[in-house]
């Protein structure tokens, strides 16, 4: 390398930068005028003004304090600062340093993804609504079935019942009250709208019957004896007058030498139950061919 002809002050990176060439020519005359030894003693940089002498790497590590070193230190500090700032920036927020085109592409991706998720969400919501409606209608059907089961359980005698009604006590005299007379009482109660009836702990249902076996009364194969205690649930104000009609059920009972007493109550209990038997011969008519209700 021809050191004598190369400007000493131009660092190597600047040699191929055209913008530095005027600067180099600016430095060169000053340097030539001042002379190498003066410059060296002034700046305490060994070998700077004397071409041919090279720095060793170890000499760089020797601390020196002058203007040029301070400038370099300040620039290095700026570089380190900017470097670390950029590194941190890059780590902390990669999105904000992206270019517009990248951001647009990213936004497209995100939008497509969110649209797909939106579609999935709506389809899942439709499924959920269907399932909820299904279970809702199922629950309504179960509730209706339970209500019907309760109603028909009371009417068929399967369930105990309570409510307003009357208590009728019949005490025989010397003569046994006939089965037909007792059945008449039952029919009178039914006519008056009794919903649940029992006599001496026997629930009276649609198939109930009265008979006389010798001198004692038999209801549905169960012998009952005087005093007979009827309990009927229905409107007391209808049941009591219906029983007491002149020439009616109780009149017939009394004509057979028995005493009858009717008590209305706001709450009576029919505790006897009867498990209904499955019909042997009758089967329900299919719904499609069934006639009008009632």
């Amino acid at each position: 390398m021809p050191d004598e002809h190369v400007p000493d002050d131009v660092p190597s990176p600047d040699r191929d930068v055209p913008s530095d060439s005027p600067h180099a020519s600016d430095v060169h005359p000053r340097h030539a005028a001042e002379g190498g030894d003066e410059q060296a003693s002034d700046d305490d940089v060994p070998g700077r003004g004397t071409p041919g002498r090279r720095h060793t790497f170890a000499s760089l590590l020797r601390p020196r304090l002058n203007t040029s070193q301070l400038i370099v230190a300040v620039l290095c500090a700026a570089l380190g600062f900017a470097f670390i700032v950029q590194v941190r920036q890059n780590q902390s927020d990669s999105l904000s340093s992206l270019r517009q085109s990248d951001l647009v592409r990213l936004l497209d991706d995100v939008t497509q993804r969110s649209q797909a998720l939106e579609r999935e969400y709506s389809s899942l919501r439709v499924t959920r609504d269907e399932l909820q409606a299904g279970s809702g209608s199922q629950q309504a059907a179960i509730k209706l079935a339970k209500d019907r089961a309760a109603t028909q359980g009371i009417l068929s005698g399967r369930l105990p019942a309570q409510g307003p009604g009357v208590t009728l006590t019949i005490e025989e005299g010397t003569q046994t009250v006939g089965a037909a007379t007792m059945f008449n009482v039952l029919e009178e109660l039914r006519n008056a709208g009794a919903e649940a009836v029992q006599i001496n702990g026997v629930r009276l249902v649609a198939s109930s019957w009265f008979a006389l076996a010798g001198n004692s009364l038999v209801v549905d194969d169960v012998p009952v004896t005087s005093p007979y205690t009827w309990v009927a649930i229905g409107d007391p104000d209808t049941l009591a007058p219906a029983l007491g009609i002149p020439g009616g059920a109780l009149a017939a009972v009394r004509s057979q030498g028995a005493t009858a007493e009717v008590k209305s109550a706001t709450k009576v209990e029919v505790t006897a139950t009867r498990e209904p038997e499955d019909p042997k011969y009758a089967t329900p008519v299919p719904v499609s061919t069934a006639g009008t209700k009632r």
Partner: protein
Amino acid sequence: MIAFVGLVIGVVVGLILQPTVPVQLQPYLPIAVVAALDALFGGLRAKLDGMFDDRVFLVSFLSNVVVAALIVFLGDQLGVGAQLSTAVVVVLGIRIFSNAAAIRRHIFKA
């Protein structure tokens, strides 16, 4: 030596202050850092060559940074910012490598 101290001080200050880069400067800072690194390596090589001048170093450092940022800025305005950033980084990288090679020859004589 003081240069190394300055570098360390800059890093420490950056770590302590943890500043956020303004949005307008964000595309230019990495390029400016690479340009400054190039100037730093060039200065180190010149020092080892025995032809270091603080004025030249100062001017080349600042002009490198400014020119690099300016090129990226122009690229952004023309819509080729990404490509020009890559070009600048490639050119500066080549220079850093050649400077590093020269420094290596000085230190290891190989």
